[in-house]
Every structure is written in structure tokens, then in C-alpha cells.
């Protein structure tokens, strides 16, 4: 017994064995836990990590990363706070990827994948990327900006082993389409190509040749410049696609052309994801029916269909798990969803008229209720509406208790329950109480502190909370900070929470990724106090036309190992013990 005990102490688990075991662990959370066990495990983990995930590019520096992880092949990097999607962040705020690329080029020459979200990527950076990594395979730019076709040309020209080019949602202005023609004639490795959000004309000829060469192509999402006839010619080359983003449906087809397109779609037996469909009307929408039997994700967020059109479409999509639509389908359209999509897990309803200029009805609690009755597996919802009631939401979560993501946007700020005229507190109370797996919540409508008391009391798995035009006192924010142990991201705009609320989270912010507060009741003094008490937080005040010497209109707080930003523009004030 003694001898065994001694043996255990003298010969720890051999590190090659440990490294072998750890190399099977993919999840960065698990790897983080492993690295905390002891020094040997920390070392084994750092030598075997090949995938890097950095949720906030400013939480750490390229140098720190390079020192710790010697063998990275894949990087996922996120930059700006989410509210930058809605123009709340000035231009040139930061999150420029260049410094990271310079480091990657030096330390990770075998880099294969780079996935960026909300970062600024210049043409110079894309050029550096294209030239620095001979085995580079996958580039994904989600909600990024800063590049033009020059950068894409560099990628197309120099990345010989590229398998994925995905430019989802990225904002580009005045971009040309010449980049597509830069893929060399011998280049044939592409498996995923998505340029749906680029406003440019590409050479169809070049695209057709590219598609015909790339036999392993499984996802193709073209942009609006590609018409139906051209799409048919592409589909004929790659009927085995699993993901398709069509071009524009605005084209007059002869009966013969119609048949040709229809036949091409019918031959796509493996389609799981369908999107695009710009300007699809009831006349041409049926063209795609033949491709929809195995569809699991249907993205109609660019096609303003009406209820009847949706009702005719859905019965062809018997395997549907995710559906995105525009609210032109109305409550009636959502009733059809409830009837036709029993396997549905995710629903997103986007507004055609967010600024209420045309007095469109959109959807109400009626549609949401109908979906909840027919789709018990619903776990993700994003719902834009003008009217909602507490009772409806309570019933909805009774029908669908498995929500992990509940994002309800009642578009008029401070709108009460439209039947009782009461605040929407009970609605979100019901969500918090009933949906025990809830990880992400966006609240809206007229809300008092009561709503936040509910959230703090019941939403114990909540990780992300978005709040706008809500609350009655500092206590609201305090309830959330004190009550939600797993909170990682808190974004607040146009609420009356002030310094007391901010400072009540002193101990909390280091356990979170970030806090955003804009148009609230914070002062520079209060932010300075936070910065002084918590030196490992970066407390940044973004100065804009609504700020002055006392009022802090836009505040971004995040934990960081890298200290204050070195690249902060003049309008970003980093607060510290002494201001930087």
C-alpha cells in the first residue's frame, strides 16, 4: 500500500500520454479547465491546443497568445461590441485584425483557418493573410468591414489550398466583383463559397468555370447579381450541394426556362440550407419546391412573402428545423408555420418596416402563440413585433419550455401589454421561471424593476442579456448582477441605471466578458471609480456628440490581461487610476 502510494507520487502521468489524451479535447472551455489542474496539465494543454477562440480581441494581446500557445492552426476572433451592428459605435473605433495577423504570420505559419466577427479587416491585412500561410484553408468574415475587392483578389490569387471563403453579413461599400475572376485556372479546392452579402457584379463566366472545377463544393451562396437562368447553369454543375443561396428571382422566364430551372432544383436532393430568394414572388417561388424535402434551414429573410405564399411553401419542407421570415407573412403565415413545421426549433421574424413608416401590421402575439402550439421543440426565437401581451408570453413558454434563446423585440420603446396596458414584467418573469435552460434573453416593452427581479431570481443559466428603454431604478440592474451567476455579456441602452447600479457589479465584471451601457445615467466620475477599484478591467468611455465633461454616454467595460488599449482612437477615453 505504502509502495503504491510512493509510486504515485514519484511518477506522475507521463506527459506524452497526457498530451495524447488532451489532443482529443476540442472545447475551449474544457481545455481551459484542464489547464487549471496543475502546471503539468497547463503545459500539456498549451502544447496540444490547435484551435484558438478569443471572444473579445482586446481581452488579451497577440504577444500573450503567442507566448502561451505554440501550435495554433485555427483561430476564431471577435471584435466590436454587438451594438456596433446598429451603428452605436463610431467609425474607426478599433478591432483591427492587422496586429493579430502580423503575429500569426510570425508564430503560426501553418495556420489553416481564420474566423472573424465584427472586426475591421483591411485589404492590406487580407494581402498579408494570403501571402503568409501556405496551407491556408478557411476564411470567414462575419459582420466585418474595411476591405474591398482588392483584398479579396489577394485571397483568390494566392490561397492555393482554400476550401472556404465565407463573407457573411460583412459591410462593404463600392466593392467590385473582379476578385472572383482571380481564382487561378488550376484552383479546384473550394468547398464553401458565400458572397451573398456583397453588392457587386461578378463575372458569371468565371463563376461557372470555378464551380465546374470545384467538385467538392457543398455550399454555394451567390449574390443578387446572379439571375435564375444563371443559377440553373450552376446547379446543373453541383446538384449535390448541401447549402444554397440563390440570386435574384426577378427575371421573366419563358415556359421552357421555367421548366429548366425547376428541373435543376428538383435534382438537388441533398439540400439542407436554402437562402437568398431576393424578390421571390408567388410566380417563381414554386421553382424551389423540389429541392426542399431534406431542408433543415430555410432563410426567407430577404423575401417578403405573404401568408398565402408561405402557407403553400411550407408543406414542401417537412424536415424544417430553422426558419427565418419577414413579418409580411403576418400572424396568418405564422399559423401556417405552427401547422406545417412540427420539428421546428428556431424561428426568427424580421420586420419589413422597422421605423413604422408605412403602418404595416406585422406580427403580434397571435402568431407567436400559434407557432408555440404547433412547434413544441422551439428553443430559439427572435421576434420583432409591435404588440405583445403578458398572457401570451406565459402561454408560449408553457408550450415551449425549452427555450435557450428568447429575443423579443417589441419595437416601440416602453410599449405596455396592449390588452391590459400593464408593464411586460410578467412576460419576462414567466420566461425566466419556466425556461430553466435559458442562456440568452433580450427584453423589450414597458418594464419596471420587477422584470429584472424575476430575471435575477430565476434565470440561473443566463449568459447574455440585452436591455433597452427599461427599468425603474438602479435596483433593476443590481438584481441581475447579483442574481445571475453565469452572466457573461450584459448590454444596456437607454435605461436610467446610474453609477450606483454600475458599481454594484464591481465583483462581477471580472467574471464577465463585457458590459455595454449607452444613454444611461452614468457619469465619468462613476466610471473612474470603477476603473480605480478594478484595475484589471478596461473601462472605456466613448465620447460622442451627446457627451460632455460629466455625462458618460457610451461605456464599454471588459476584463483584459492586456491592459488598456494601445490603439484607442482619440474619442475613446480609457479610465484608470490616473486617466490614460
Amino acid at each position, binding site marked *: 500500500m505504502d509502495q503504491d502510494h510512493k509510486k504515485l507520487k514519484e511518477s506522475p502521468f507521463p506527459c506524452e500520454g497526457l498530451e495524447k489524451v488532451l489532443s482529443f479535447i476540442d472545447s475551449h472551455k474544457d481545455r481551459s479547465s484542464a489547464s487549471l489542474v496543475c502546471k503539468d496539465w497547463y503545459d500539456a494543454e498549451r502544447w496540444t491546443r490547435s484551435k484558438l477562440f478569443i471572444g473579445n480581441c482586446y481581452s488579451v494581446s497577440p504577444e500573450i497568445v503567442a507566448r502561451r500557445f505554440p501550435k495554433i492552426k485555427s483561430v476564431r476572433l471577435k471584435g466590436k461590441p454587438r*451594438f456596433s*451592428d*446598429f*451603428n*452605436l459605435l463610431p467609425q474607426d473605433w478599433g478591432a483591427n485584425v492587422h496586429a493579430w495577423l502580423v503575429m500569426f504570420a510570425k508564430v503560426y505559419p501553418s495556420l489553416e483557418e481564420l474566423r472573424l466577427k465584427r472586426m475591421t479587416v483591411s485589404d492590406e491585412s487580407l494581402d498579408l493573410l494570403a501571402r503568409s500561410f501556405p496551407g491556408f484553408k478557411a476564411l470567414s468574415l462575419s*459582420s466585418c468591414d474595411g476591405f474591398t475587392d482588392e483584398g479579396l483578389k489577394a485571397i483568390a490569387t494566392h490561397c492555393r489550398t482554400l476550401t472556404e471563403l465565407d463573407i457573411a*453579413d460583412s*459591410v462593404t*461599400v*463600392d466593392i467590385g466583383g473582379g476578385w472572383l475572376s482571380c481564382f487561378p485556372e488550376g484552383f479546384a479546392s473550394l468547398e464553401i463559397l458565400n458572397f451573398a*452579402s456583397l453588392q457587386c457584379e461578378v463575372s458569371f463566366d468565371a463563376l461557372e468555370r470555378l464551380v465546374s472545377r470545384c467538385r467538392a463544393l457543398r455550399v454555394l451562396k451567390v449574390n*443578387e447579381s446572379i439571375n435564375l437562368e444563371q443559377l440553373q447553369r450552376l446547379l446543373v454543375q453541383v446538384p449535390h450541394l448541401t447549402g444554397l443561396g440563390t440570386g435574384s428571382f426577378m427575371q421573366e422566364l419563358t415556359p421552357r426556362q421555367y421548366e429548366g430551372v425547376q428541373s435543376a432544383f428538383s435534382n438537388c436532393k441533398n439540400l439542407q440550407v436554402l437562402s437568398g430568394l*431576393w424578390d421571390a414572388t408567388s410566380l417563381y417561388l414554386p421553382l424551389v419546391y423540389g429541392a426542399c424535402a431534406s431542408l433543415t434551414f430555410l432563410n426567407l*429573410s*430577404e423575401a*417578403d412573402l405573404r401568408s398565402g405564399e408561405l402557407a403553400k411553401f411550407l408543406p414542401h419542407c417537412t424536415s424544417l428545423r430553422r426558419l427565418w421570415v*419577414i413579418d409580411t407573412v403576418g400572424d396568418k403565415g405564422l399559423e401556417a408555420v405552427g401547422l406545417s413545421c412540427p420539428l421546428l426549433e428556431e424561428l426568427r421574424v*424580421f*420586420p*419589413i*418596416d*422597422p*421605423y*413604422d*413608416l408605412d*403602418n404595416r401590421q406585422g406580427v403580434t402575439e397571435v402568431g407567436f402563440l400559434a407557432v408555440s402550439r404547433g412547434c413544441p421543440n422551439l428553443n430559439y426565437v427572435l421576434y*420583432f413585433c409591435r404588440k405583445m401581451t403578458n398572457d401570451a408570453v406565459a402561454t408560449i413558454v408553457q408550450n415551449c419550455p425549452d427555450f435557450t434563446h428568447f429575443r423579443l*423585440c417589441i*419595437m*416601440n*420603446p*416602453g*410599449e*405596455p401589454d*396592449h390588452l391590459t396596458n400593464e408593464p411586460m414584467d410578467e412576460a419576462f418573469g414567466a420566461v425566466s421561471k419556466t425556461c430553466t435552460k435559458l442562456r440568452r434573453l433580450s427584453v423589450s416593452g*414597458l418594464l419596471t424593476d420587477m422584470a429584472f427581479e424575476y430575471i435575477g431570481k430565476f434565470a440561473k443559466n443566463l449568459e447574455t442579456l*440585452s436591455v*433597452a*428603454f427599461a427599468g425603474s431604478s438602479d435596483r433593476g440592474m443590481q438584481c441581475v448582477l447579483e442574481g445571475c451567476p453565469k452572466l457573461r455579456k450584459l448590454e444596456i*441602452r*437607454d*435605461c*436610467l441605471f*446610474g453609477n450606483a447600479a454600475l458599481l454594484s457589479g464591481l465583483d462581477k465584471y471580472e467574471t464577465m466578458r463585457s458590459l455595454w451601457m449607452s*444613454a*444611461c*445615467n452614468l457619469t465619468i466620475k462613476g466610471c473612474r471609480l470603477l476603473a480605480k477599484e478594478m484595475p484589471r478591467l478596461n473601462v472605456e468611455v466613448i465620447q460622442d456628440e*451627446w457627451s460632455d465633461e460629466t*455625462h458618460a*454616454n457610451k461605456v464599454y467595460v471588459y476584463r483584459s490581461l492586456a491592459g488598456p488599449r494601445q490603439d484607442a482612437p482619440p474619442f475613446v477615453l480609457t479610465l484608470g487610476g490616473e486617466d490614460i
Partner: protein
Amino acid sequence: MPADLNLRLGLPGSDQTDVDAAKSNKRASPEKAEDTASNGVPAAKSADDHETAPAPKAQIVGWPPVKSYRKSTAAAVKKAEAESGMYVKVSMDGAPYLRKIDIKLYNGYSHLLTALEDMFKLSIGEYSEREGYKGSEYAPAYEDKDGDLMLVGDVPWEMFMSSCKRLRIMRGADARGLGCAQ
């Protein structure tokens, strides 16, 4: 009488008056949101924060939270921008503070330039494509979407309106380099 037979002043297709009346009770406007947040919080500042009579609804920046790239909402975004003002800052070389004007209020370059001459008490010369603004102490320039400094007058008025981010009245000598020679 059917609504479309009513004669009234307004943009074709706009049906604001009846709609506003019906909804004014229920709708919690951004102004109301300011009231509820009563302790001096500058809530919801809208782009449209000057007096307008039959209110185009005041736009709150970034609300509702829809991404602007969506084509389905891009039309709405453009329309919303069209209905609210298009305010740009105007600076003059040598002047201590800036002014702000709504370009939407002008129906063309000559209208805009006359207003600028009036506002800053100066004279801006004759525009020619080849030589820019000749024979004047000052020349009007603007910063476009890409951040480039451009001479006012080179592009069609509509294009100017949508790309102008800021105006700068430069001294004639400094502005010569902005001539249209390509």
C-alpha cells in the same frame, strides 16, 4: 370621401395624417420614454430633434436593432433617413466654431451655396468643371463617405446629398488641388 380623393399637401403615397391620429394614444413615442426615465437621463436622442409639425416619427439611432445590411430593411432605412433631416457640420477655415445644416432643405447646388454665402458672410465664385471655383476667396468642399475631401459641385446633386458627410469652406488657394482633373 375616400382618402385618396382628399387633396392635401404631402409626398405622394404618404398617408400620415389619419394614421397618426389613430395611433397617437397608444404609441409610446421616444419622447415618452424620456419622460419615464425621469432623472435627467438623456434617453433616445433622435436624428430629428428639431421641431417638425406633422411629425415623421422621430428616429432613434440603432433602434429597432436590425442590421442595416439587410436588403429587406435597407429600403426602410433609406426612407427613414429621407424623412429625418440630413444634418452635416459645416466648418470654415479660420472660423472658431462650426455650424450645422440640413442638406435636405436645399433643392440644388446654387440654393446650397447661396445659403452658405449668407450664413458665413462670404462669397463663393463661379463653379466650372475644369477649374473649380474661380475668382473667389473661398471654395466649398465636402468629406464623402470614404473620408475623401471633394469639391462641391462635381457630382449630381442627389449623389452629393447621399455621400456628403461634412462640409468645409476652404480658402480658395487651398482648394485648387481639388479640381476635377482626373
